[in-house]
């Protein structure tokens, strides 16, 4: 219950609390009224019984002393016909030995019977203790019968309080109806009023909740009037949304720059890759021109030319594949890693690095993963590792598919990732500085639902990307 209440939004909880307090106040007020009514009724009843007993004591004293049964009965009978006496359902007069002298209803309390043997005598109250606490329609009162200053007997009176009990019941019903209606009305008004007061909190919570990475400022029209705490809160929030947007824009620009830098590096290494054989090819073309009539030399030069051109065709194809728009949505294949090797090797060769390449996966293992983002992730990590490893350094790629997931592990023997770069790779969004393309890697891995781990062992730095198995057909 309390837990359920705590789960309610504040905008509901606060008005509900106000309503509950109103109901509580109504209950307390009703209780007070009822208690006062009961006190009044009891006081009235006590006064009535006191008068009844006192009057009977005066009238019956001599008769009780003489144990005159008839006189006692006659007095009780005549007293019972008085208008006020209708409340006395039964009056029993006993002598000092508790032997019954007479009763207003002799059938219920026979002459010479014992007072103690009457039903309900044990529960009879003294006059001053009369109470209507129980809802019983009859109350029994036992009072001493005093005459000339001494106790000569006792008077047991059974009061018919059914009307008082009924009156109280009516009062309870009326109070319940009236207080209930008023309390509910007040509770409703209180609920509505507090709800209105709390409405800005809901607006703020909605904006903060739905904004996510792109929070929307609250329109000025919805700002509460005046310079209340709520208005200040709204202005502060709007200021914060501006800051968040500015930061997101900066991030986007940084990311774009990273992409360009990455592209630039790749294209320069590819230019090398094309440029490097060009010298040999030009030499071969020169040789053919110089020795057009030496078939052996021409054949060898043409072979050289063909090999060089084939290589250049392969490189061009790899670049085209890497950037082709229609590759989007295609499944990853082992050939993609061959392409990657082709793309990265000019840069590594330039730096005198030797890749340690381990792609132990089958076509079927890779079928569930999309080609474009995985290639992008692997290429960026390799480029980073290559840059970190430095000339003659060691760079490794290991691709495995344990339990259906895909693990790309890129290692190098560089000095390790600077703090800022690491934060950019595995930290939250908005981290900046260090490492080229690491922001892109982080975003791509996040989009694929994977995770990035970083480990530094000895001189070796390993970055491990684990992508979960995609749902069947996701890559198609």
């Amino acid at each position, binding site marked *: 219950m309390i837990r359920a209440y705590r789960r309610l939004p504040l905008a509901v909880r606060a008005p509900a609390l106000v309503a509950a307090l109103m109901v509580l106040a109504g209950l307390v007020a009703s209780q007070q009224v009822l208690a006062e009514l009961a006190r009044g009724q009891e006081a009235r009843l006590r006064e009535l019984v006191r008068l009844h007993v006192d009057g009977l004591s005066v009238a019956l004293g001599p008769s009780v002393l003489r144990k005159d049964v*008839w006189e006692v009965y*006659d007095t009780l009978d005549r007293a019972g016909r008085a208008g006020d006496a209708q409340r006395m359902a039964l009056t029993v007069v006993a002598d000092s030995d508790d032997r019954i002298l007479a009763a207003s209803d002799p059938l219920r309390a026979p*002459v*010479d019977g014992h007072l103690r043997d009457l039903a309900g005598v044990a529960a009879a109250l003294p006059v001053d203790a009369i109470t209507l606490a129980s809802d019983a329609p009859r109350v029994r009162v036992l009072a001493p019968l005093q005459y000339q200053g001494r106790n000569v007997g006792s008077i047991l009176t059974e009061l018919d309080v059914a009307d008082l009990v009924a009156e109280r019941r009516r009062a309870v019903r009326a109070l319940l109806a009236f207080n209930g209606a008023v309390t509910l009305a007040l509770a409703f008004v209180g609920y509505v009023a507090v709800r209105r007061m709390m409405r800005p909190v809901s607006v703020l919570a909605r904006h903060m909740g739905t904004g996510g990475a792109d929070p929307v400022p609250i329109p000025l029209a919805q700002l509460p009037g005046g310079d209340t705490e709520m208005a200040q809160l709204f202005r502060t929030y709007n200021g914060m949304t501006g800051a968040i947007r500015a930061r997101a824009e900066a991030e986007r620009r940084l990311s774009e720059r990273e992409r360009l830098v990455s592209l630039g590096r790749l294209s320069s290494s590819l230019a090398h890759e094309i440029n490097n054989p060009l010298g040999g090819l030009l030499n071969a073309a020169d040789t053919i021109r110089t020795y057009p009539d030496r078939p052996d030399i021409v054949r060898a030069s043409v072979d050289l030319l063909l090999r060089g051109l084939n290589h250049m065709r392969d490189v061009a194809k790899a670049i085209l594949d890497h950037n082709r728009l229609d590759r989007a949505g295609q499944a990853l294949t082992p050939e993609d890693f061959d392409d990657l090797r082709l793309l990265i090797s000019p840069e590594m060769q330039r730096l005198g690095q030797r890749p340690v390449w381990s792609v132990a996966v089958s076509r079927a293992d890779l079928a569930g993963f999309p080609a474009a983002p995985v290639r992008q992730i692997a290429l960026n990590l390799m480029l980073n590792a290559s840059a970190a490893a430095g000339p003659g350094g060691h760079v490794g790629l290991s691709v495995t598919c344990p339990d259906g997931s895909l693990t790309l592990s890129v290692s190098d023997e560089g000095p390790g990732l600077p703090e800022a770069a690491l934060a950019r790779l595995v930290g939250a969004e908005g981290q900046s500085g260090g490492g080229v393309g690491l922001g892109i890697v982080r975003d791509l891995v996040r989009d694929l639902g994977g995770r990035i781990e970083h480990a530094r062992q000895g001189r070796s730095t390993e970055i491990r990307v684990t992508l979960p198995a995609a749902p069947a057909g996701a890559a198609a």
Partner: protein
Amino acid sequence: MPAAIDRRSVLAGLAVCALPRAARSAGATFRLGLTPVFLDNDAIVIEQLRETFHVAMGRPIELVQRRTYQEVTALLLDGTVDAAWLCGYPYLQHRDALRLVGVPVWRGRPLYRSYLIAAPGDAAADLAGLEGGSHAFSDPDSNSGWLVTASDLARMGRTPEDFFGRTIFTYGHRNVVRAVASGLTRSGSVDGYVWEVLAAVEPDLAGATRVVRKSEWLGFPPVAIRKDRAEDPLIRRFAEVLGDLPETDHGRATLRLLDLDGFIAGTPALFDGIAARMRDVERLR
């Protein structure tokens, strides 16, 4: 309750055709003692009775009531009252000093009976069946309200005190009926005439009792005077008025209220039955 309507209409009539005041207030006050032989607690009956004698005798009438037969008898004997409506039993107790001046005629005869009553659901078929229960008597000097039952018990060799579990005196025949009707006592001894009148005017009260046994017919409670004042003109006038009640409108109205036919002079022999019962009780003492 036709009797009540009669009473009121008669009273209203009396108020309208009142006699000249001079005739009413002349002479010394005549004092009449009343025992609870009839509905003595009915204010209308008392007032009617007083008014009737006032009109007939032409002098103020004081009706003197006491709680017990004994007190009223004493008032008569010591001359405080000029005449008294007694019961046959006290009349016989003091027959040497008293003389009859009128005996009521009820249902054509100067006789009545004593009733033994109990609750309607009581199984008792006779006096013997009421043994051990509580019993309400009217007055220790009442024939129907004590002597009849006491003498019946005497004939059984018992006394009221040892036969009944408890006896009480209510000093009024109507009170006996009340005591039995309410359950205060199991049974009661009551004037049969009173019970019959109550059965007509207060059927709820009389209906809450049942007549277990009726006695033989006995002399109706008479009006008596002191023997030594028998020749007093006032007394003689009173006797005439008593005898002439059926002759006047007031008298007839009063008799109607009392459910009586009239008064006759009566003779002591009327009370022989009571005298016999007195002897039976005396014997046991």
